[in-house]
């Protein structure tokens, strides 16, 4: 049972400017179990070069908590790439 043989299906959510770039609000992606959030972002960055320009200003979340980009992902996780917040 090497980690690379297992896959994880995660739910991905997009908001604000990121949603406009990606073109939809929600996605479902299969990736190697334990892959970091960073790897998931690279997947979208490859398809949407404009997204890479915003990388430095984005925060990541996993299961509704802010998370480091190195956080490993597992099946059932919910991930989002969050632009700077501007509520209030």
């Amino acid at each position, binding site marked *: 049972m090497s980690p690379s043989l297992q896959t994880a299906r995660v739910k991905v959510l997009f908001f604000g400017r990121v949603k406009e770039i990606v073109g939809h609000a929600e996605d479902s992606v299969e990736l190697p179990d334990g892959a970091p959030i960073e790897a998931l972002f690279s997947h979208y960055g490859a398809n949407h070069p404009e997204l890479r320009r915003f990388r430095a200003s984005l*925060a990541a979340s996993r299961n509704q908590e802010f998370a*480091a980009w*190195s956080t490993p992902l597992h099946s059932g996780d919910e991930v989002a790439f969050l632009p700077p917040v*501007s*509520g209030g």
Partner: protein
Amino acid sequence: MNKSLQPDLLLLVRDPIDHAALIQHVRAAEDGAIVTFDGCVRNHSHGRRTLYLDYEAYESMALGKIREIAAQIHEKFPIHLMSMAHRLGRLEIGETSVFIAVSSAHRPAAFEACRFAIDTLKRTVPIWKKEYFVDGAVWAEGEMPPAPLETCAAKPAS
């Protein structure tokens, strides 16, 4: 979140915010002070005339973060109750986007907790505002949430 039993009123809403209900919720006979903050839609932003705003949220996470703020202010300040509502969707000039009410026996706690609540909301709650002008629309410049620590668990065991 060891204060989950506190009966604070914490809401995301799509209709106009009911200020009176939020104030009524925190008002009690043992309180001597109620401080409220009403954030409303200005008719200008960075020198341009605003037409209206549109607010979008990551709703489940936003509610979680608002509950964290409530728990934090009960730990930090000797307050009695708080209520906080943020509106989503299209808002016209003058309408309330966020309303906070805090009650306490004495006024310093209510002032400090109310200020802490709105300051923290603006840094940590995943809500986004799009500003519409006569000549276009922009996402408001926002604030970066505090960065979480990098986790070592990311490295696969080799």
